[in-house]
């Protein structure tokens, strides 16, 4: 369904169920060169199990209009505006990779409006090598191949988002190409990576949140290595947050390489 957010049509996948503000709401936020469809299995399940789901296409990505966010802070402001547009008073925020930083920053700003925070494939700082940044700017298709290899941990994933027979390597490449092509004005690949690289407020943000936080990490993640999430985890614990950590035997694409384990980690956390 579409919401008007900041004057722009904004697409949110609702998991195959009508949007119902009366149910507890979860907002899913995708990463760089992704869109709502990376969350399909998790969102569809949760939408049919008592939750209201909004898996957004960030502005300037695929079905959503508007200026693609140039910073984590801009994107966090968009998430707040999305909740207002959807008339959602409280929501859980779930973000992957770049989306995890957006969820974190939004949770720090929205305080009690955020009931739960789930950071999937996260790291802070989320530094991007200068070589990859430059390649994403000048040779985005080459950079897409690079991150696809870094993001995957297996040539034999279990049945995934399109069902058995899905080749997730190829599906990620095709989605990346589609997301890049969906914005003819801005290189959303480079802009997203730059936003990750330059975000500096992670530790302050985790200290400012008021909700429980779950980290879903990939033991074989080469994009955001599990160890790179430890400063955030330590800061959260140090500041008295309720912290849970699920480390899965998977790479950076937790949602498609181990869809059930990722779903259950999120579901069980949200139910507590």
């Amino acid at each position, binding site marked *: 369904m579409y919401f008007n957010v900041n004057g722009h049509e904004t697409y949110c996948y609702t998991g195959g169920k009508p949007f119902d503000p009366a149910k507890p709401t979860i907002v899913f936020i995708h990463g760089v060169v992704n869109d709502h469809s990376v969350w399909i299995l998790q969102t569809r399940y949760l939408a049919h199990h008592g939750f209201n789901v909004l898996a957004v296409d960030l502005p300037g990505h695929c079905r959503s209009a508007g200026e693609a966010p140039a910073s984590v802070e801009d994107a966090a402001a968009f998430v707040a505006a999305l909740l207002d547009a959807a008339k959602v008073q409280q929501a859980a925020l779930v973000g992957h990779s770049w989306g995890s930083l957006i969820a974190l920053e939004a949770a720090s700003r929205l305080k009690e409006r955020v009931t739960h925070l789930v950071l999937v494939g996260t790291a802070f700082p989320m530094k991007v090598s200068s070589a990859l940044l430059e390649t994403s700017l000048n040779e985005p298709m080459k950079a897409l191949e690079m991150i696809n*290899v870094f993001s995957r941990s297996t040539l034999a994933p279990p049945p995934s988002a399109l069902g058995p027979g899905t080749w997730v390597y190829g599906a990620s490449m095709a989605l990346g190409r589609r997301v890049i092509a969906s914005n003819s004005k801005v290189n959303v690949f480079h802009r997203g990576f730059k936003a990750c690289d330059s975000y500096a407020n992670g530790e302050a943000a985790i200290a400012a949140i008021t909700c429980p936080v779950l980290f879903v990490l990939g033991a074989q993640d080469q994009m955001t290595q599990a160890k790179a999430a430890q400063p955030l985890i330590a800061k959260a614990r140090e500041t008295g947050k309720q912290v849970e950590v699920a480390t899965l035997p998977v790479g950076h694409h937790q949602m498609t390489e181990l869809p059930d384990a990722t779903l259950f980690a999120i579901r069980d956390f949200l139910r507590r």
Partner: protein
Amino acid sequence: MPGYSDPGFDTLALHAGAAPDPSTGARAVPIHLTTSFVFESSDHAAALFNLERSGHVYSRISNPTTAVLEQRISALEGGIGAIATASGQAALHLSIATLMGAGSHIVASTALYGGSQNLLHYTLRRFGISTTFVKPGDIDGWRAAIRPETKLLFGETVGNPGMDVLDIPQVAQIAHEAGVPLLVDSTLTSPYLMKPFELGADLVYHSATKFLSGHGTVIGGIVVDGGSFDWDRKCADGTSKFAELSAPYDGFHNMVFTEESTVGAFLLRARREGLRDFGACMSPHTAWLILQGVETLPLRMERHMSNTRRVVEFLAAHPFVANVGHPMLPTHKSHALAEKLLPKGAGSVFSFDMKGNREQGKKFIETLKVFSHLANVGDCRSLVIHPASTTHFRMTDEALAAGGITQGTIRLSIGLEDPADLIDDLKRALKAAEKST
């Protein structure tokens, strides 16, 4: 298998989609000969049926062994996923039936396998789907044949049996300008010789019976989605061109497939509707046999091509041969295109015309000993057939001519034998034919 670069073709041919079995440690892909799979709970069952979780329910829809083959061919083609079917013809039918219904129109190459030509020209017409046939090299003809109700452009990577190479980049461009996808039959080239997605095709299918299997033991097909086509495209009047994928489908929970998956809507509907309702699925045992072939595909294709080069050179120099129709020869109309699109070779199935009459043709085929006279191609054994009286026998002389076939055309499928033995066999048969008048 994390690494620093994309896995290569040979590695994917062995490993894509399969890891040692977690429950038994079996290194080879196990054959899961079971119709059904036990649900963990009522909730698990409901979630599988509603696509909230991914997994296997019933082997007509999916099966773990078949899924390995689907992932592997997707990987070799550079696609996003695949659906294995009972035959190549089932893969073609599944592709078409997923995208259109009565009132739709297809533009197809004239240079098609006889069964495909029959499906389009006769059978689908009965169900309200019409086809306009265009010579594969007639680029303006492809463009001119497109109508508002056209839903698909379709051709073979290398046309059977005249070996007309389809100019995929140009035909794909025409298709995309018209807002329709290009489907190609890649059976004769296999992903080893050509990856049609890299050239602009949107959907690729194979008769896996041929080179993918390679051993002439099973019938199977597979359709692969490149994930590139935007099924949300609108017609000029604002209506959906592919409402089958972009509008709620009341046959499956009112699912809007393009919302469920930005890149995989075709596969979602093809599996959830096409396999469920038409039911032309692949047996897991067949999938396993084809996987055995795929593991050696790069090695076999290399040998197919080196043998073919030797045989073509021999035939081209033989005084009793009027014409050899292989694009490796500069005299072939697709020579320049083949050099560009098929640098590893244009395949090992080709035709030649003998001098002499039909009786001499018959004598030639009956004298061969290493070549087997049968209706198949892409076997590890060398094969021979007379298309006008067998594979293409339903076609009129005009349709035959449009496909580059004459009454005297003989089709060869070059196998993996010692090339000297193949040449000896052909030499002996040509001599017998020449003397038989």
